């Protein structure tokens, strides 16, 4: 390395190193938190799922920014664009697949239509939902 180091270069160098140290620190914290949550059983079920995936997503963003410099100082624009497109594809196909497979699961159960509907409604927490089109007797809409 040359003895006469540029002021600007030194600043850039420090910034780069600091970026990586910050990224490492945040990633460690964002790993420790969900680990702690799971090990001490602080959350359950859906809440747990959302919390863990949430922390993973935040760590993804942290690593992308600090390690991969993705949204930093107007770097190659195409990086952000292609990443955004990939994210779109991932969400679309990922969530789509899970949705379809869950529905196939319902259909595979070979229950009469009413039971399937009941099960779907229970899963979506509409326990007391009542579909009027199934009724011939509308008296429950009238008082007395």
């Amino acid at each position: 390395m040359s003895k006469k180091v540029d002021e600007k270069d030194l600043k850039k160098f420090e910034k780069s190193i600091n970026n990586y140290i910050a990224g490492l620190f945040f990633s460690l914290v964002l790993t420790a938190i969900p680990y702690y949550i799971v090990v001490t059983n602080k959350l359950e079920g859906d809440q747990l799922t959302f919390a863990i995936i949430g922390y993973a997503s935040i760590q993804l963003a942290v690593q992308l920014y600090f390690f991969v410099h993705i949204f930093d100082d107007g770097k190659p624009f195409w990086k952000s664009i292609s990443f955004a497109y990939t994210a779109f594809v991932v969400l679309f196909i990922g969530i789509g697949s899970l949705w379809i497979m869950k529905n196939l699961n319902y259909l595979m159960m070979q229950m009469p239509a009413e039971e399937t509907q009941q099960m779907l409604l229970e899963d979506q927490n509409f326990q007391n939902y009542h579909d009027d089109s199934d009724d011939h007797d509308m008296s429950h809409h009238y008082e007395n």
Partner: protein
Amino acid sequence: MSDVGIEKNNSKTFLGFWIYLMTDIALFMTLFATFAVLRGSTADGPSGKEIFELPYVLTETVLLLFSSFTIGLAMISARYGSKKHALILLAITFILGMAFLILELNEFYHLVNDGHSWRESAFLSSFFTLVGTHGAHIAVGLIWIAFMAYQIFKTGLRDLTKKRLMMLTMFWHFLDVVWIFIFSIVYLLGAS
């Protein structure tokens, strides 16, 4: 002296490699979706809760995280012309990555030895496929790191070498990110 020229002059190569990484993300996404669908299909075999050891996996995660850190520092060293630092940091990255791989292979070995191989249930099939594919990527990455270290040792920090090192760094960061999701979705959610 850092060199901004590298990115400007090789932007097509970097674009190509970046797009490859995007397709790799799509690949892993399909493996994740498959795992998510099949995670409950444990047949007569064990569920995640019974076979995952969280402290062990946390160790793997921390190892990989530090290796991502050191390879980033190696890239910075290369940018600023320090061959010695780049080599040392690449060596550390290699050791950390190798430690991760050994731990993972050990986990697989014990699972298969206990009779819980990928043949036992759909859950295990998808588990081994997802985690195994990631492990295969890590293995290739380690070979690449070894090659880069040899290159830097023999021919110094040429522009071409730095270009390749940048792509390796992107690749390695990508692998760490995928592991974060494996750790979260497979192990954390599986063991709870």
